[in-house]
């Protein structure tokens, strides 16, 4: 493709036409300073139309030059007969060459590219050609990012909201999105914690036939979030326990009951009663630690006395507390 190097008047460039804009908005002050100090190192690419130009690549450079009062700008000009899809590819390659694109920019690229191809195969081939790979699943996920509300896109850009989480929250109704976003903004949970919390909230809302918003605004959750004595880490821990109890009420009660009864056994530190995994397998087990014969004998005494304990019998009967 041929580019003509030429200095053109900035006023002749339509900076409102964002047909080929890929980049997400960013502060241009620093860029403007740099251009003022060292000049424009890489001229923008523009396309000649019959009555002026539109920008293909270099939107921020143009905004910055306009800001510092330049009247003319050196540009690389694409001829008017170059097809739009090829102009878009130029924009993509120019951006990709100059910097690492963020996820939203990648999504913009794919959305714009998709508008030129109706057949999926052809689209994927072209996506692959511009270096985005051919993983259809990932491409489909990326494509959805531009449809998310700005707050979620911002969350992705700032690193607070991982893409998978943003996509999940993006499926909720608006009333539910914001309480969840606020919850995560305050707590900064890890990706796995976010996944767990979201799953528990979503499933509890289904079971209770209640909105996600109502679950997040449950008094127990509000009490945790507003407790001034809890650190961020404690809040996350309490929140997960609380949500688990809401989602699995019978299982939680069974474990609570086991813990209460075990506590009542007053077992010494060195003896532990271990329930079957998930209370599914048959058989409780006990572990004991000792480092002398005397200690071994005292452990045995405790173990033998357990068979008279009502609490112990109740525990091993493993009947429902439900």
């Amino acid at each position: 493709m041929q580019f003509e190097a030429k200095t053109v008047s900035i006023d002749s460039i339509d900076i409102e036409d964002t047909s080929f804009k890929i980049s997400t908005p960013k502060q241009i002050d620093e860029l403007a300073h740099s251009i003022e100090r060292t000049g424009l190192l890489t001229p923008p690419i523009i396309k000649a139309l019959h009555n002026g130009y539109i920008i293909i690549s270099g939107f921020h450079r143009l905004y910055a030059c306009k800001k510092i009062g330049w009247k003319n700008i050196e540009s690389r000009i694409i001829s008017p007969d170059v097809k739009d899809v090829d102009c878009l590819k130029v924009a993509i390659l120019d951006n990709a060459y100059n910097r690492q694109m963020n996820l939203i920019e990648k999504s913009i690229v794919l959305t714009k590219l998709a508008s030129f191809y109706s057949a999926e195969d052809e689209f994927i081939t072209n996506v692959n050609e511009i270096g985005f790979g051919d993983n259809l699943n990932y491409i489909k996920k990326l494509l959805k990012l531009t449809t998310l509300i700005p707050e979620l896109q911002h969350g992705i850009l700032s690193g607070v909201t991982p893409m998978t989480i943003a996509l999940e929250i993006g499926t909720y109704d608006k009333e539910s999105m914001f309480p969840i976003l606020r919850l995560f903004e305050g707590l900064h949970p890890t990706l796995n914690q976010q996944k767990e919390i979201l799953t528990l909230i979503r499933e509890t809302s289904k079971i209770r036939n209640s909105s996600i918003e109502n679950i997040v605004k449950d008094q127990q959750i509000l009490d945790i979030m507003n407790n001034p004595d809890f650190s961020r880490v404690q809040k996350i821990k309490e929140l997960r326990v609380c949500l688990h109890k809401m989602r699995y009420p019978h299982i939680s009660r069974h474990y609570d009951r086991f813990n209460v009864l075990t506590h009542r056994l007053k077992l010494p530190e060195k003896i532990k009663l271990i329930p079957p995994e998930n209370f599914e397998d048959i058989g409780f087990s006990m572990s004991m630690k000792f480092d002398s014969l005397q200690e071994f004998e005292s452990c045995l005494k405790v173990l033998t006395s357990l068979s008279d304990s009502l609490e112990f019998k109740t525990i091993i009967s493993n009947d429902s507390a439900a």
Partner: protein
Amino acid sequence: MQLKRFYIDFTIAESPVVESIRNRISIPPTYVESPDSIYEMLLKSDDPVSLGKKTLFLTQNRGAFIRECPGTSHYTCCSYKILHIGTYCSMDCAYCILQSYFHPPLLQYFVNHNELLDSLNGIFSRKKIARIGTGEFTDSLIWEQIFPFSETLISRFSGQTYAVLELKTKTIQIDHLLDMKHNRKTIMAWSLNTEKMIHETENRTASLWARLNAARRCEASGYPLAFHFDPIFIYPGCERDYQNVIRLLFKHVSPENVVWISLGTFRYMPDLKWIIERRFPRVILPYGEFIKGMDGKMRYFKPLRIQLYKKIIAEIKKCAPDVVIYFCMEDDEVWQKALGCSPSEFGGLPQILDACVSKHCGIEKTVLESD
């Protein structure tokens, strides 16, 4: 069957079974040399699981026709034999494990019936009791619409003394079977559920009332019957609902003709959850209080299972005190706590079920040596 695509394995194109099926299906078939192109087509679609229910492939079974029930470790299995007539199902239960069992799932019907019948003869000639069913990888009776093979099976089983066939279904396609000579060697069985669960999750199946009516008609034709409460779901009000189904069941059939009733709560491989969520977003059954069982499947928390089983069993005992009840894939603790006994007290679950078929299907005690 509402078919969208119809494929025929090139190698069996001339088979008379194929000829007969082709005449009953209005869409033109595509002949293929291998199933690969069908798999590819399904996997490329947005919803292979749904498309698979509308894609029929007539082929031959190149593997074993008779297989042992896969069962799972740690839980008591009934040692049932599976007669492999085809795969997948045209009905669409939200919880159906076949959705994640085959990759991708596809309605495959095996037309090499002569080989199937040879395998059956092998079983018959062993002179050992065998319980054989076709409803493990598919519904036993959906295929009757395209080829009434159950007639052949019923008649083959009726002419021998050692094996029983169980046809397990959620359909009511029994009219053509009513006048057959079955010699009580075929058990007509229905999977039952509460009206709420049938309505919400068992798409395109017959209603509870229709299933029970069909069972009543089969009983009138002398068939022994069986019922499977599997999967049982735990939801608010489930106990009352299952009790109602049991009362309704015994208003339709008499306990004397019921060979067995099996109970099994919903269990599934973890992969199935996302399929259900995607295909049936309004269904809440994946959100029960499940734990990962010892076989890797998700199951309801054991104390909850036991609690519901107890209620269901009490109701069955009230209506039909002598009917044999067994659990599908439960451990000894559940047996003891919910039913008050363990299969080992009777020599094992297979022996219990063998005794049932002996009693109801006229199999001589001397051949009670199931393996």
